[in-house]
């Protein structure tokens, strides 16, 4: 029976429905009910996504769990869903992080707590929609719709400067999205279909590709975010409540890289190849320049936000060195680079999420994000210090944690493109260790710095649960990334064999 279920629709609409129910159960005395409804629907979504993973046939590249309904017939826009090796891990990640956020914000929100949980549930469903949609307009609808809950989360439950941050966040991303919409409409009219995969096999002249490339670039680069359109992220993180930061870092940034893989690389490969050098330079700026900027931060959340940007630089780097590698004929190395980029996407979800949760644990107790307000936390919170150490090391890319896998693969692959790319990307070894462990030293080690630190209580059960889950995942994928690599491998090979070939003429394109 379960095979017949429209599983992707459930993954989208189950949490949205749960959110709608929770929205109407307000008031302090119903708090308990709203919490449990949220948790149950989030967990149910997670279990569904894991079930989808377990039944997914990872030996094939093509879409699975496909659903297709007509939606706006006059424009040939369809409600069509499906997942492949790129989108399925992201859906699982989204569903997991939604559960994590709901558990971690259980009692922490003092005003409108039901609405807070509802916002995350709704966002989780909509983000699943972004990854599952195979119709460009449907994709765009989810893409824009998911901004709304995030806008509210920062705007209502955020810090003192939240209005500036939300506006900056919204205008930045909306500015990018407009170009995306124009590009998608153009492609849809040309292809006479909004099916994303029909767009993959279109023949496009180079100048058209270049215009589309920039339309995509603006939209996706803002989301990643790539230098120089990254300045919304630190502000948004600083003002966002813990849960908002977690989702922002763990999932929302991945929308940008997903866009590169789903739209930019397959639809405009020739323009992407022509612009690869630019993208590589921007990626290296993200790794090196942002790494230095992170070193100078005094606010823990800002520091982790900048470190996110630097880590995302590896994703774009891994994707865009593939052209030079294919050109040289080293296909396995190109696969390695792209796999590294995609592993980094998932791993960064765990690690940045965990880092923000750790900062949230401290913030809940002391109400400060300033590094200078802490010192000697290990004396009063030894168990917390242990988890924080693990995630800090993962952030620094220590082997044995998932943070290492992606960076390692991308650096290994990039030496074959250029000595300098490998060296500059490799600087992250020093920079990431520098900014992360220096922060750790100032916050956790040392004598108890002040009265507030002396009063700290160690982790609560709820905090334990979320940190243990993330720690287990960080270690599991660090020691044994093969399952994830195998899941993505056919899709990556398909991308290289069929999508990254020239779209200037029908010749050589896969049928």
């Amino acid at each position, binding site marked *: 029976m379960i095979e017949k279920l429209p599983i992707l629709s459930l993954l989208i609409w189950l949490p949205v429905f749960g959110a709608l129910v929770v929205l109407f159960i307000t008031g302090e005395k119903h708090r308990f009910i709203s919490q449990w409804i949220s948790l149950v629907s989030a967990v149910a979504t997670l279990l569904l996504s894991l079930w989808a993973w377990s039944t997914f046939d990872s030996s094939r590249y093509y879409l699975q769990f496909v659903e297709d309904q007509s939606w706006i017939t006059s424009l040939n826009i369809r409600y069509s869903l499906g997942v492949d090796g790129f989108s399925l891990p992201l859906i699982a990640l989204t569903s997991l992080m939604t559960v994590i956020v709901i558990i971690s914000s259980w009692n922490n929100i003092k005003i409108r707590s039901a609405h807070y949980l509802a916002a995350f549930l709704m966002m989780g469903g909509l983000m699943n929609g972004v990854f599952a949609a195979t119709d460009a307009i449907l994709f765009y609808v989810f893409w824009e719709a998911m901004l709304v809950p995030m806008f509210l989360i920062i705007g209502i439950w955020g810090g003192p400067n939240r209005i500036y941050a939300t506006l900056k966040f919204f205008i930045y991303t909306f500015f990018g999205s407009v170009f995306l919409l124009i590009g998608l409409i153009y492609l849809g009219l040309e292809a006479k279909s909004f099916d994303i995969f029909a767009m993959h096999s279109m023949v496009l002249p180079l100048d058209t590709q270049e215009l589309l490339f920039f339309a995509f670039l603006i939209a996706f680069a803002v989301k990643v975010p790539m230098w120089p359109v990254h300045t919304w992220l630190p502000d948004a993180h600083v003002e966002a409540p813990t849960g908002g930061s977690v989702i922002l870092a763990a999932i929302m940034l991945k929308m940008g890289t997903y866009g590169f893989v789903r739209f930019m690389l397959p639809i405009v490969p020739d323009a992407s190849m022509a612009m690869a050098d630019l993208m590589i330079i921007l990626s290296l700026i993200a790794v090196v320049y942002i790494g230095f900027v992170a070193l100078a931060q005094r606010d823990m959340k800002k520091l982790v936000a900048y470190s996110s940007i630097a880590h995302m630089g590896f994703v774009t780097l891994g994707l865009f060195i593939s052209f030079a590698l294919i050109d040289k004929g080293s296909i396995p190395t190109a696969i390695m680079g792209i796999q590294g980029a995609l592993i980094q996407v998932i791993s960064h979800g765990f690690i940045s999420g965990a880092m923000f949760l750790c900062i949230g644990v401290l913030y809940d107790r002391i109400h400060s994000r300033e590094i200078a307000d802490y010192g000697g936390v*290990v004396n009063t919170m030894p168990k917390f210090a242990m988890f924080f150490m693990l995630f800090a090391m993962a952030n620094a890319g220590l082997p044995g944690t998932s943070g290492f896998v992606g960076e390692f693969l991308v650096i290994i692959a990039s030496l*074959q493109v250029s000595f300098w790319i490998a060296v500059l990307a490799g600087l992250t070894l020093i920079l990431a260790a*520098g900014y992360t462990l220096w922060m750790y030293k100032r916050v956790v080690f040392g004598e108890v710095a002040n009265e507030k630190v002396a009063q700290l209580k160690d982790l609560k059960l709820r905090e334990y649960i979320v940190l243990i889950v993330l720690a287990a995942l960080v270690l599991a994928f660090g020691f044994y990334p093969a399952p994830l690599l195998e899941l993505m491998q056919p899709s990556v090979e398909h991308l290289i064999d069929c999508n990254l070939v020239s779209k200037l003429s029908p010749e050589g394109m896969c049928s």
Partner: protein
Amino acid sequence: MLNQLLAIVLLPLIASVIVGLCGQFLGRQWSHRLTIAAVAVATVLATSIAIGFYNGQLKPAEYVLYNWGQFGDLAKGGVKIEVGFLIDSLTSTMMAVVTFVSLMVHIYTIGYMKEDPGYQRFFSYISLFTFAMLTLVMSNNFLQLFFGWEAVGLVSYLLIGFWYKKPTAIFANLKAFLVNRVGDLGFLLGIAGVYYIFGSFNYLEVFEQVKQGFANVDIAVTDEVVWSGITFVCIGLFIGAMGKSAQVPLHVWLPDSMEGPTPISALIHAATMVTAGVFMVARMSPLFEQSEVALNFILMIGGTTALFMGFLGVIQNDIKRVVAYSTLSQLGYMVVALGASAYSIAIFHLATHAFFKALLFLAAGSVIIAMHHEQDIRKMGNLKKYLPITYITSLIGSLALIGTPFFSGYYSKEGIILAVNNSQLAAADYAYICVLIGVFFTALYSFRMFFLVFHTSERMDQHTRDHLKEPSAVVTVPLILLAIPSLVVAWFIADPIVSGRYFGDAIVVAASHDTVAPLIDLYQDWFSFAMHGLAPSPFYLAIAGIMVAWIFTVWKPEWRETLNSRIGFIGNILRNNYYFDKIYINYITAGGVGLGARFWKWIDAGLIDGIIVNGSAKTVAAISGQVRKIQSGYLYHYVFVMVIGLLAFLAWVYWRTLMN
């Protein structure tokens, strides 16, 4: 066999995790019982494997555990990374040394840390270290090597900062980690180069390709500067070794690492982890034999470290720092041996050094306990009266260190000096001079410390003197157990190691680099070789070193002041560690943070946010303020605008036609 290997690696890990998570529940006794039992079993198994290779019963073999990842189709040049073990005589030697020293340190820790509130945590860390070090030496591929490499670095970081309240300790551990990361960058690039040339991460596949002849690649730094791929690989890997094995200029972290508890100074920062770089180069001997540029580079770095770090040992007053600089200098000796292609002798010295240096550190720890955590040798003296076991074992350790004939250190160090003398490489002469003069300074700093601690007048305060006594058996027994191999181990292993019988194919030396072969005859009889050692110059240099130490500490201590005032400027350079720390901290680290702050202020906040983002928001506000005025409601305004618009449009069409 695979089960045995898994037990060796995993038992310490399991013990570490259990003690780490449930240490409070288990209590002190069960915590140390559990970890010691795990390491003891690992030691027995590892030693039996080493003996198996020694007897020739075991043959080298690879054991695959699981598939870490695969990239591309194997038939089309794809690559598969499989985690596993490569076990041969080289690996088994390291396994035996690591587990044995670790076991001694575990036992010793019971006494040394008995009053420390972090007792269980400490046992958890050192067991974790044993696991990490074993994965490093037993690895069959470069990825796992890098894992072990960084994992021992992590544990070293945790243990240097073990007393996390001490500002110096948490400074030292961050410094150690970051300096090692600089080396690791080179290491990682080296691994990337290995994959570039050989398309594989597996040792045996890579070595097989080297044997068959391989296509070298060019690595272009600029259009003009193009490096040979294999040289790039070797120098990259060696830069990693320079970090881990603390070679100049990446040596600065090791003296500071003495902030950690003494047992780990013995285990990690003397006997095992710091020798990982030496082991790695020996393991990669087939690669290093392909690049004479790299070998020359190694000779230069090793010789410099051996000599110049020896100088620094002479002026230290902290008992642990003297031993630390001695470690740096001895690591330099091992590295020189590597550069001279005498890999087997480098490993030989690594093994003997592990025993006598662990002994010296633990003896120093014994002194420190007895002195109530006083580490300044100027406040000690005549301890031979109070600590007889520590005195005798320290004497054995020191004599082994300076290379006294019949002691184990003699066989390995003499081998290095002879081998580097045989080397034909350009940098060999420099390295030879360095290691030769180094012998004098080794004897000088060792016996300066020895005399100041155990002889001379009693300079401690009355309270300390009243409580001076030999620590308990958990401290002295490891000293005795380490003193025995420090004296005798070379008698049994010198000949098989130097003759090449023991390492066999595990170490590859090109015929033109073979500096060890001429020594084989010498080593056939350990007794006569020791007698031979009484003749050549290194022995007299060592004697001279002891004499000078004796003159300046026992006979005429007041001469030290005179000397100090005469050559004060050299003393300044030495006391400042050749200004490495000042340059690194004041310029490189502070410069990096300053650069970040400037990037952030000027570019992120100033240019991007200040001018472009918020600036365009302001511009839009300003423009819309103006544009609003256009909507005046007067018809003639609108007509006027329409006319202008129409004219503009016509002008544009006209211009388009003109252009076409």
